[in-house]
């Protein structure tokens, strides 16, 4: 029987549910689970620092509201963005953080930082998902 060279085996994959779930709950956690501590640490540091800066600037958390299309997009989208920070969002709500929406550029930046922290965590979740399914090394 001739020696036929074998095709390279695909990278081992694992179930992505716990990875993505942990990534959402603890920023960078999915990368730690996948044994990528460097990437996970950098992503965690960025998301946590951005969220903490948002809190220190007294940004407001969005509550879902409906009405005209713009209100629905802004408030429901903002709520999803806040929620994407996972445990950071849940802890701050459970510990009683309830900043009303106030005028002023610092508060405004704070609100955006809080949402952006969640959106950066979504990017980290997508990255962890792609590593878990073997699409990325």
């Amino acid at each position: 029987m001739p020696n036929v060279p074998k095709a390279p085996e695909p990278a081992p994959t694992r179930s992505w549910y716990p990875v993505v779930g942990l990534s959402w709950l603890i920023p960078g956690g999915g990368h730690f689970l996948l044994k990528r501590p460097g990437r996970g640490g950098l992503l965690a540091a960025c998301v946590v620092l951005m969220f903490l800066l948002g809190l220190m600037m007294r940004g407001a958390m969005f509550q879902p509201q409906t009405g005209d299309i713009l209100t629905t997009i802004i408030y429901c989208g903002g709520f999803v963005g806040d929620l994407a920070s996972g445990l950071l969002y849940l802890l701050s709500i459970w510990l009683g953080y309830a900043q009303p929406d106030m005028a002023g550029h610092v508060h405004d930046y704070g609100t955006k930082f809080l949402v952006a922290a969640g959106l950066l965590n979504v990017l980290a979740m997508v990255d962890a998902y792609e590593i878990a399914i073997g699409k990325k090394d």
Partner: protein
Amino acid sequence: MPKMNLTHFEASVLFALFSSVVLGVITKRTDAERLRYGLRCFGYFVAALIGLGWLMYLGHG
């Protein structure tokens, strides 16, 4: 939790910094590529920030 007061410029640069690090980390394959891409993103953010700042200043009259 201490309260923080930042200028527009400081807040925007911090935003650019964290976003660039995340974009660099998740998009490229090697560390050198990640560093280059992160720095390039940060440069674009700051260039857009300064450009838009001047545009608003000049447009304000």
